[in-house]
C-alpha cells in the first residue's frame, strides 16, 4: 500500500471491498458476563475521585505527599485501562459493548437513570487518551507547579477533572453524561481561576462556566425531549427507538445536543470563552482546553450518531459549524501574539475539523475520532512545550518577546517541533493521516466544505510556522534580565513521550492498530469517494502545507519581528487580534441588556411592587400607612392585635369543650 492511499487503510476494508458490511454491535453484555477486569471498570474514575477527595479533605497536611498520590492514581487508572483494552480486543467484535450497573440512581415516575457505565471501542479510546495524556500532564505539573504554595490543591482539582471526564465518557445514559459534563466544567472553572488573586483569571473562569451553562441548557432539554419521546435516556434504548421517531423530533434533539457540544468544545457561536481560559496554568490548558474536555462535544455528537444519522438538518448544521469554526480559529491563531492564545485558536480550528468530520455522517465519524486522538497528543505536546518556554522565561507569554530560544531550550524546541510536524500535515506524521482523512471524506460528501478544509490546512501550516519561528528562531528579543533556561526532566520527559505520539501516532493507528476497524462497529462507516482523484489530492494537500510553511518562515524567521505589535496592519489581522469580535458581540447582545434589565427590576421591586402591595394593603385597611408609622408603635399594636385576635379565636374554639 503506497503512503498516498494510507488514509484508506484506516478504513475497514482489509478484504479490498468497500466496507459496507460493518457489523454493528447489537448485543450488550454485562461486566459480570464479560468477566476479567470488566467488573472493576468503576475504578477507572473512582481512583482519581478518591485522590481529589483525600487531597481536599486532608488539606494542607497532605502538602508534602499529596501530589505524589495525585499522580499515582491516574496512572493506576491508565494501567487498568490498558488491561481493559487488551481484554476488549480479545472479545469478538460484536460483543465489545460491556455495561456495568452500579446502583439505582435517579428514579421518579417512569423516569429511571441508573448509575451505569458502558465500555465499548469508542469509550475505551477516550479512556486511554484521558488517562494516558492525563498521567503525563500530572507528572509534568510536578515541575511546573513546584514553586506554587497551593500545588496540592492544583493536583486535587486535576484529579477531580480526570474523574469527571472519565465519568463523562463511561456513562451509559445521557443523564449520567450530564454529571460528567458539568463536572468537567466545574474542574475547568476551578483550574482556570486557580490563581484567584488575579482578577483576570477569576473573570475568565466565570465566563467559561456561564457560557458552558448556555450549552448545558441544550443537553438538559435534549435529555427531556428524549424521555418524552422514547420514555428512556439509556444509550442503547434511545438508539434502538430512534428510527421510530419523526424527523422533526430527531432534528430538535440533534440540535439541542449540538448546542451542548458547541458550548463545551468552544465552537461558533459559543467560542468566546476559550481564549480567556488560557489564564489558567498551562498544564490545565494542555489537558482540559486542548486534549480532552474541549473535545467532549465531538464525543457527544459521535456517540449520538444514531440520532444524527436520521436528521439531515442536524448533521448539516454540525458540518456548517465545523467549517465556520475551523476557519475562525485558524484566523485568530494567525493574529495572536500570546503563544497560548495562538494555540487556543488552533485548538478551536482543529476541533472545527472534528466537527466537520462528524458532520459528514458515517463517512466521517471515524476520522473525527481519529483526528481527536491525534490532536490530543500533538496539541498536549505543543501546550506543554509552550508551558516549558514560559517556565524558562519568567512566565512571559508574548511571542514578540521570545526569539532565538532554540539555543537555550534545545529539548523544548525538539518537543515543540515534533508537535509542529504532528499538526501541520506533513507526511508521515499524525495529521497527514487524520486531518487528510477528514478532507478526503469531505470532498466526497460536500465539496465546498472539503475545499475550505484544504485551505485551512494551509493556514494551519502558516500559523504553526509563525509560532515556531517567533519562539525559537530569528534574533533574541527577550529582556536583559530574562535568562531563558531549559526545564527540568520531570517536565521535558512527558513532553518527549507526547512527541513520539505526535510523530508516529498516525502511522500506528493506520498500519499497526487500524482505528477505523476498531471504531466502525460503534460509529458505522460509509465510504465516500473524493471528487478529486487520490494522488493529485494528496499532492495538492502537501503543496498547500508547504506553501503555508514557506510563507510563515519568510515572514517570521527571515525578517525581524518587531517587539511591539505593528498597528499598520490589514483589517483581517486587526479582527483576528480581537478574536473576531466575539466578546463585543456577546457583551452588546446579552451582557449589557441583562445588566439594564437587572437594574430596572431591582428598582421595580423596591418601588413599584413593594409599593403596590403596600397600596393594596392601604386600600383594605390603611396598613401601608401603619407600616410607615411602625416606629411609633401603632402598627405594632395593630398587627399584634390581629394576631391576638386570630389566636384568641383558636383558643376559644380549642377550649370550647370545657364550656
Amino acid at each position, binding site marked *: 500500500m503506497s503512503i498516498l492511499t494510507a488514509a484508506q487503510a484506516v478504513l475497514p476494508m482489509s478484504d479490498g471491498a468497500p466496507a459496507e458490511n460493518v457489523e454493528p454491535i447489537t448485543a450488550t453484555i454485562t461486566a459480570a458476563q464479560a468477566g476479567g477486569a470488566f467488573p472493576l471498570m468503576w475504578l477507572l474514575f473512582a481512583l482519581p475521585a478518591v485522590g481529589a477527595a483525600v487531597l481536599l479533605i486532608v488539606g494542607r497536611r497532605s502538602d508534602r505527599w499529596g501530589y505524589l498520590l495525585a499522580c499515582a492514581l491516574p496512572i493506576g487508572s491508565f494501567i487498568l485501562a490498558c488491561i481493559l483494552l487488551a481484554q476488549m480486543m480479545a472479545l469478538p467484535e460484536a460483543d465489545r459493548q460491556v455495561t456495568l450497573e452500579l*446502583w439505582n*440512581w*435517579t428514579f*421518579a*415516575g*417512569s*423516569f*429511571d437513570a441508573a448509575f451505569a457505565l458502558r465500555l465499548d471501542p469508542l469509550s475505551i479510546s477516550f479512556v486511554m487518551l484521558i488517562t494516558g495524556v492525563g498521567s503525563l500532564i500530572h507528572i509534568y505539573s510536578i515541575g511546573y507547579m513546584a514553586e506554587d504554595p*497551593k500545588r496540592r490543591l492544583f493536583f486535587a482539582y486535576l484529579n477531580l477533572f480526570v474523574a469527571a471526564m472519565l465519568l463523562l465518557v463511561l456513562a451509559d445514559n445521557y*443523564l449520567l453524561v450530564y*454529571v460528567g*459534563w*458539568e463536572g468537567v466544567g466545574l474542574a475547568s472553572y476551578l483550574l482556570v*481561576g486557580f490563581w*484567584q*488573586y488575579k*482578577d483576570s*483569571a*477569576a473573570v475568565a473562569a*466565570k465566563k467559561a*462556566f456561564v457560557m458552558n*451553562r*448556555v450549552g448545558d*441548557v441544550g443537553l*438538559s*432539554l435534549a*435529555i*427531556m*425531549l428524549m*424521555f*418524552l*419521546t*422514547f*420514555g*428512556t435516556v439509556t444509550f442503547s434504548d434511545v438508539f*434502538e427507538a430512534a428510527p*421510530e421517531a419523526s424527523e422533526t*423530533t430527531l432534528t430538535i434533539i440533534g440540535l439541542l445536543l449540538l448546542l451542548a457540544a458547541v458550548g463545551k468544545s468552544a465552537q461558533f457561536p459559543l467560542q468566546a470563552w476559550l481564549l480567556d481560559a488560557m489564564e489558567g496554568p498551562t498544564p490545565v490548558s494542555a489537558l482540559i482546553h486542548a486534549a480532552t474536555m474541549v473535545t467532549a462535544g465531538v464525543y457527544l455528537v459521535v456517540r449520538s450518531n444514531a440520532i444524527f444519522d436520521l436528521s439531515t438538518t442536524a448533521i448539516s448544521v454540525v458540518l456548517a459549524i465545523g467549517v465556520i469554526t475551523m476557519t475562525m480559529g485558524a484566523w485568530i491563531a494567525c493574529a495572536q501574539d500570546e503563544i497560548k492564545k495562538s494555540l487556543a485558536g488552533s485548538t478551536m480550528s482543529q476541533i472545527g475539523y472534528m466537527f466537520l468530520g462528524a458532520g459528514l455522517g458515517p463517512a466521517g465519524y471515524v476520522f473525527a475520532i481519529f483526528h481527536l486522538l491525534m490532536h490530543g497528543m500533538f496539541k498536549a505536546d505543543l501546550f506543554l512545550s509552550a508551558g516549558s518556554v514560559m517556565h524558562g522565561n519568567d512566565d512571559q507569554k508574548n511571542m514578540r518577546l521570545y526569539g532565538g530560544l532554540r539555543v537555550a531550550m534545545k529539548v523544548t524546541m525538539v518537543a515543540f517541533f515534533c508537535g509542529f510536524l504532528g499538526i501541520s500535515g506533513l507526511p508521515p506524521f499524525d495529521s497527514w493521516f487524520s486531518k487528510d482523512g477528514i478532507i478526503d471524506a469531505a470532498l466526497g460528501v460536500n465539496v465546498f466544505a472539503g475545499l475550505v478544509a484544504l485551505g485551512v490546512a494551509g493556514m494551519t501550516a502558516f500559523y504553526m510556522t509563525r509560532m515556531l519561528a517567533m519562539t525559537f528562531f530569528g534574533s533574541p528579543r527577550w529582556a536583559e534580565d530574562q535568562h531563558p533556561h531549559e526545564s527540568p526532566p520531570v517536565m521535558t520527559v512527558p513532553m518527549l513521550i507526547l512527541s513520539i505520539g505526535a510523530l508516529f501516532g498516525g502511522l500506528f493507528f493506520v498500519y499497526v492498530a487500524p482505528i477505523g476497524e476498531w471504531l466502525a462497529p460503534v460509529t458505522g462507516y460509509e465510504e465516500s469517494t473524493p471528487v478529486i482523484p487520490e494522488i493529485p489530492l494528496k499532492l495538492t494537500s502537501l503543496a498547500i502545507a508547504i506553501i503555508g510553511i514557506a510563507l510563515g518562515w519568510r515572514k517570521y524567521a527571515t525578517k525581524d519581528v518587531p517587539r511591539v505589535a505593528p498597528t499598520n496592519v490589514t483589517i483581517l489581522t486587526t479582527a483576528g487580534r480581537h478574536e473576531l469580535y466575539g466578546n463585543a458581540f456577546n457583551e452588546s447582545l446579552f451582557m449589557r441588556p*441583562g445588566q439594564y*434589565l*437587572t437594574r430596572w*427590576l*431591582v428598582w421595580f*421591586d423596591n418601588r413599584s*411592587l413593594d409599593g*403596590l402591595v403596600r397600596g393594596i394593603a392601604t386600600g383594605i385597611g390603611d*396598613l401601608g400607612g401603619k*407600616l410607615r408609622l*411602625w416606629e411609633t408603635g401603632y402598627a*405594632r399594636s395593630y*398587627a*399584634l392585635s*390581629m*394576631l391576638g385576635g*386570630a*389566636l384568641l379565636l*383558636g383558643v376559644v*374554639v*380549642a377550649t*370550647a369543650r370545657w364550656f
Partner: protein
Amino acid sequence: MGILSLLILVPLIGSAVVAFVPASPTRSKQLALAFTVVTFVVAVVAYLQFSPGGEQFQLVESYQWIPALGVTFSLGVDGLGLVLVFLATLLTPLVILAGWNDVEDAQAQNGDSQSEGQVRGYFGLMLLLLAMTLTLFTALDVFLFYFLFEAVLIPVYFMIGRYGVGRRSYAAVKFLVFSLSGGLVMLAGLAVLWYVSAQITGEPTLYLPELIDIDIDPTVQTWIFWAFFIAFAIKAPLWPVTTWLPDAAGSSTPGTAILLIGVLDKLGSFGMLRFCLPLFPDAAESAAPVIIVLSLISIFYGGLIAIGQTDMKRMIGYISISHFGFIILGIFVFTSEGQVGSSFYMLGHGLSTALLFMVVGYMIARRKTSTIAEYHGLSTPTPLLAGMLLFAGLTALALPGMSTFISEFLVLLGSFTRVPWVGAVATLGIILAAVYILLFYQNTMTGKVTEKNKNLKDLNLRERVALAPLVVVVVVLGFYPAPVLNVLNPYVDDVMAQVGATDPPPTVPLATGVQP
C-alpha cells in the same frame, strides 16, 4: 404516646428549659444543642419505623381535642412529611452550632449593649419554633395545622424583631402582616371546608384522611382552594407576594434566616401538596395555568434581582424566591417526575439555603457587615471559607453531583413532559443561577484582598463541624438519592392518584420492553 408526640415534646420541653432556667449563655447554648440533637435522634428512629410504600399516613396518633367541632389532635407522616421532619431536625442543631454567637454578633451590628438574657430568649424561641414546625409537618387535622400556622408567627416575629439586625422591626411587622393576611384568608377557607364536610358526611370533620375521600362541588372547591393557596403562596413566596422575604432575610440573624426560609417557608409548598391538591383536585387543575405562569415569573424575577443585590442576605432571599418558583412549578404540572422533584427540592433547598446562610454568617461574624462590597479577595486570607462558599453556591446552582441537581432536573423534566415550552423556559433559569452564584463568589472571594479583609481568620473547628454534615448529606444524596426517592415516590403516587392525574406516555414507546 407515639414517636411523633415525643418528637414534638422534646424540643418543646427544651424550649422551656432553655428559656427559663437561669444559666450562663454558654450553658444555655449547650442545653439547646443537646435538646436538638436528641430531637434529631428521635426523627431518625421515626424514619426507621416508616415503611416506604406502605400506608400513606404512618405513625398516626390521634387524640380528642374539640369533639363538638370534630377537631382532633392528630399526627402522622407521609413521605414528604418525613423528609421535611428530617430537614428540620437536622438543620436546627447545626444552626445552633453555626450561630453560636449570632446574638452577640447582632448586638455588635446594632450597637446594642450586651445582655445575657438575650441568649436564653433567642435559643428558647428557636426550640419553640422547632417544636411548632414539627407539629406542622406532622399535623393530620387541618384545624391543628391552621392553628399552628398562625401561632408559629409569634416565635418568628420575635426572632426577627427582637434579635435581628438593621430595620428589624419593620421587617418583622411586614412579615407578620403578610403572613396574617394569608392566614385570615385561609381561616375563611377552613370554615367553609368545615361546613361542607358536615354537609356531605353529616358530621363535621377536619381530619385529613377523611377529607381526602369526600367529593366537594367544583365551584366550592375553587373558593377554598384559592383561600388555602393564597396563604401558602405568601409563605413559600410566589410572585408577586414576595416582598416580605428579602426584608426578613436581610434583618434576620443567619440562624433565623435558615430556619425561616430554609425550613418554615416549606410549609407553603408542603401545604399545597398536602392540602390543596388532594382536597381540591378539580380546582387545582383549573388553577394550574395561572400558577405555572406565576412560578415562571418567580424563577426569573428572583434570579435577575439576586444578580443586582448589594446585601448578601437579601441576595440569598431573592435566590430562594427563584427556587420556590421551581418548587411550585413542579407541583402544579401534575407529573410524577415534577412532584417528586419538587418534594426533593424542598429538602435540597433547605440544605442549600442553610449552607449559604451559614457561610455568609461566618463572614458577617468576622466583619459585622452584610454588604457585598465590603468583601473582596477573601480566598487569600480564608481559603477554606472561600471554598465552602463556593460549595454552598454550587448546591444552589444545582451542579450535578449535588442532591439539588436531581431535584431541579426532575422538576424541569416533569414540566417539560407536561408542557414542553414551560419546561424549556424554566430550564433557561439554570443560566441565571450560574451568573448570580459565580458573580457573588467573584466579587467577594477573588481578586487582590482589600486592606480590611487582609487579616481575617479562616474557619475554626466549630464552624467546620457545623458545615460538615450538610456537605456530606448533599453529596451523598447527589450520587445515591435512593433513601429519599424511595420514600417520595410512593408518596407522589398517592397524590397523583388523589388528583386523578397520569403522566404523559412516551410518544414513541419501544415495543421491546423498554417500558417499565
